[in-house]
Each structure stands twice: as C-alpha cells, then as structure tokens.
C-alpha cells in the first residue's frame, strides 16, 4: 500500500498514554444539594491498554471520563497522564486532541460532510494541509471499507456508519488516549458486533490507551484487557479484572471456557450493583 494508514494512526504514541487516577472525588452541587458522583476513585491504566469501565447507568462513569477529557473538573484527587497532572482540584487542562472523545449519541457535525468531519481535527490544529489530511482520510475510509461515503452528510448514512466515521475522526489525530463513552449504546446487536470487529481491528493495528465506557458486560470482556466494575453512585472502583484472552480476538472466544468463566464471575458483581442502583431509584442497567 502506498500510504499505510497504520502509520497515521499510531506508533508515534508507543509507550505513551499511562493514566493514573488518584483518589478522585467529584461532588456536584446543583441547587445547593450536594450530590457525590465519584467517591475516592483510584485506578491505573497502562499505556496501550484497552480498559472497559462497567457500571449502572448514571453511576458517575461519564463524570470520570469527562474529567479525563477536560470537560469537567474534579473536587479532589488528581488525574495524571504520563506523569503530568491533567486534572486536580485547582487545575484542569483544557480538552485537546491528545484525549479525543467519542460520544454516546454521536457528535459528527451534521452540517459537514464525512470528509470535512474527519479532517476537522488535523486542520484545526494546523497539523496537516487540507490535501494531505484528505488523502489520509480517504486511506482510512478505504481501510475500513467505507470508501465512497466521503461526500455524504452524516444524516444520509446509517448510525453504524456514522459511529465508525466518528471513530476515524478521532483516530486521525493520533490521540494518546481514546475515550469512548458508550459509543455503541444506540445500536442493535448486529450493528454492534460489526462495530466491535471494527474497533478491535483498529486497536490491533495500533494499540493505544483506550477507555471504553459501557454497561454491557459481554462487550466489555470481549474488547478489553481490563474490566473495571464501578459501584452505583457515588462511583467507586468495585472490581478490577484482568482479561487474559489473546489478541487478535474473534467472536469465537465468546463461547470459550475462559470467557464464560469471567462473565459468570463478573456478572454477580455487576448484578449486585445494578440491584442497589435499582433499589435506590436509579435507572436500571441492562
């Protein structure tokens, strides 16, 4: 291949993307009432690791992700990226292309074509000339079998395609960390499995630190190196489970003994928290 997109999306970041979350708490005070969203949460994520965070809806997973992304502040504790504090009580690094987020409901700009969406980052950051960025975008689209859609608007394609383009739009920036906030939540089971393949292929191609928020345990085990189960609100780390399934992963491993065993053991933990969330009036998780 003349222009290998793998070079575009990775390698430069090798060894980067160590995240350390140290005793992070977040208290919201809407209308004077104190709501604790995250409570004394500590985690460490190694460079190039794919981590899935599982927990009941509304438990504070997204709050944690927003703090890493720079959308939200934390009340106490610290978040470090490669040794540098990016979020602490009086410090909040602005959002940036080293920590690109893919959103729950999709956030492709509906007024831009797919091409304009994908090249938005590199052009905004003045990292590439438009022509160069477009060449890479075409290569990326081709690589994932979406060639020919570059002139379409997001509203003209399926939500699965939108989601894939959104992930490409993030990847073209070569982020140190990919932050995925329940990106496949709105998709049906078939589209979801296509998305898993897509995401895994990209990850195997150029592993980078990925934080994937979900409430689908099976998805978490299938994709991640490490599954973190959070408690119901306020979010604390309940269980950290290393997944020892080999990569590259295929759907065949879902039936494997190891997968089943992992799922069974984690299911009880997740269920326990879901039950607590349910009883305390939160929305139930799947």
């Amino acid at each position, binding site marked *: 291949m003349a222009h290998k997109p793998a070079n575009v999306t990775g390698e430069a970041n090798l060894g980067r993307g160590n995240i350390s979350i140290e005793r992070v708490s977040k208290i919201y005070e809407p209308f004077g009432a104190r709501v604790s969203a995250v409570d004394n949460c500590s985690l460490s994520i190694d460079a190039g690791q794919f981590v899935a965070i599982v927990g009941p809806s509304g438990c504070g997973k997204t709050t944690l992700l927003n703090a890493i992304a720079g959308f939200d502040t934390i009340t106490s504790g610290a978040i470090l990226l490669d040794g540098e504090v990016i979020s602490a009580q009086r410090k909040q690094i602005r959002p940036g*292309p080293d920590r690109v987020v893919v959103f729950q409901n999709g*956030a492709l700009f509906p007024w*831009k074509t797919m091409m304009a969406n994908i090249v938005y*980052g590199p052009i905004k950051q003045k990292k590439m000339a438009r022509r160069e960025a477009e060449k890479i975008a075409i290569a990326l689209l081709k690589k994932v079998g979406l060639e020919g859609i570059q002139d379409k608007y997001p509203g003209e394609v399926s939500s699965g395609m939108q989601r894939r383009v959104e992930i490409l739009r993030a990847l073209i920036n070569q982020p140190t960390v990919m932050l995925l906030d329940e990106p496949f939540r709105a998709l049906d089971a078939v589209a979801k499995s296509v998305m898993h393949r897509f995401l895994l292929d990209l990850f195997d191609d150029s592993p980078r630190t990925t934080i994937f928020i979900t409430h689908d345990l099976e998805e978490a085990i299938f994709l991640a190196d490490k599954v973190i189960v959070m408690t119901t609100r306020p979010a604390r780390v309940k269980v950290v489970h290393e997944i020892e399934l080999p990569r590259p992963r295929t759907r065949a491993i879902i039936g494997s003994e190891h997968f089943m065993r992992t799922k069974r053991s984690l299911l009880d933990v997740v269920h326990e928290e879901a039950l607590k969330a349910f009883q305390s009036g939160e929305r139930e998780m799947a």
Partner: protein
Amino acid sequence: MSVNALKLRGSNVGGKISSYVRGALSVKTLEGIVSLVAFVALWQAAVSLRIPYISNLPFPGQVWNSLGEAAGTSGYWLSWVASLKRILISFIIAQVVGVPLGLFMGMSKPFRQLIFPVFEIVRPIPPIAWIPLAILFWPTEELSIYALTFIGPFFVIVLNVMQGVASIDQSFKRAALSLGAKPSDIFWKIMLPGALPSILTGMTVGIGVAWNVLIAAEMIAGRNGLGRMTWEAYTNGNIPLIIVGMISIGVAGYLCSSLVRLIGENCMPWQRRF
C-alpha cells in the same frame, strides 16, 4: 421561472440532487396547476349559483380584466416596488439585529436572564398595536412603516434562534474542543451552523408576519404600496381591484417565502427539504 432557474443553479452540489429538485418541482407544478384551476372553477360556480354573500363577489373573469388594466398602469407596479422595498429592508434589519441577539441569549444564561423578562412582556403585544405609537414616534410615515415591519418578524426570529442555540447538543461543542478547536471557534463554527435550521424557521415564519404587519401599516399609514392600493380600491368601491390587490399581496408573500426557502436550502445542503 427565474425562481426555478435559481433553484437549479444553486444546487449544483450534485447532479443527483438537482435532478431530484427538478423531479420534485414538476410534481409540485402539476399539483399546483390542478389546485389553482379547481379554486377558480369553484369561485366561478359559487358566484354563478348565487350562493348568498359569495354572490356579491365579482366573477374571476372580471378580476382578471381588472388585473390586466392595473398591470398596464405604472401605479400598480410602483405599489409592488414600494411594498417589496419595505419588506426587504425591514426584514434584513430584523435578521441582522435579531439573529445575533438570539444567539447571545441562547449561549449566555446571564444575558438571557437579563433580557428575557422585558422581551417576554413586549413580545405578546401584536405588532399592529404598535401602529399608533409608531406613527407618533417616527418623523415620517415611511419610517413608521419600516419600524412596524421590523417589529413583526423581530421577536419571532430572536425566539427561534435562542431556542435553536439552547437545543444544540452539548456534544458538538465538546467534540470540537476535543478535536483541537479553540473556544473562540465555538461561536462561529459550532453554534452558528448548529442554529442555522432554527434561524431558517425564524425567517420562514418571520417573513409571513412581516407581510401581515406591512399591509396593515400601509392601509393605515401608507401613501403607497400594495396594502394602500387595496385600501384605496375599497374606498373607491372597486371590488375587482380589491381582489387584485389581495391576490397581488398573496403572490408577493409567496415569492418572498420561496426566496427564504431557497436561501435556506442553499445554506444548509445537509438538510434539504422539498
């Protein structure tokens, strides 16, 4: 015809789209002709059958002749020019003032809280109720008409834009920042395109309101224009000419709405509506 030509030229985004426009237009044109012919036939029948009250109307043919006569005079066309000029200028000023105000009110909560209470008290006052004050306040009748035609669409525009901005998904803003946009890019590159659909809705509704107010203002305070022409036809007891005036206003309003739609479709190729 020139509107169609504009429409096709404007949408050279792809041959597929322009052929779709042509397709949609031809269906529209056919249906439009059928509906117009049926309406005139009903009118003719209602007058011929001497249906009470309606039979006081002139026949379509009489109106047609009256239109022919009027079209031969420069006064008729000057009325068009006068009304269109007022609409155009007032409406553009309403956009220029209303859109930024709506954007700021949508984006900034303190600003909204500062402006909104007064806004909400003034807004329900029908534009026509401004006529006495406008006539007293402005030095010339012409200026009072401009002011009234401005007020009509102004509130509609501000309100639509404000709500449009408030309903823009927060993720767009965050996505842009996360992809390296500067906070100063957010207004022009995210809020403005995000609010465009609501700006267009405000324009579409606003242009209708502008015509409403303009005609009333012309009838009361104007020296010329389509509204004045219709009013004078009434004072002269020329019923066919009254109807010519009404139809002219209708056509003028239709042309303005089409223009607004055309602008909208060209500003927002991602949201083509037919």
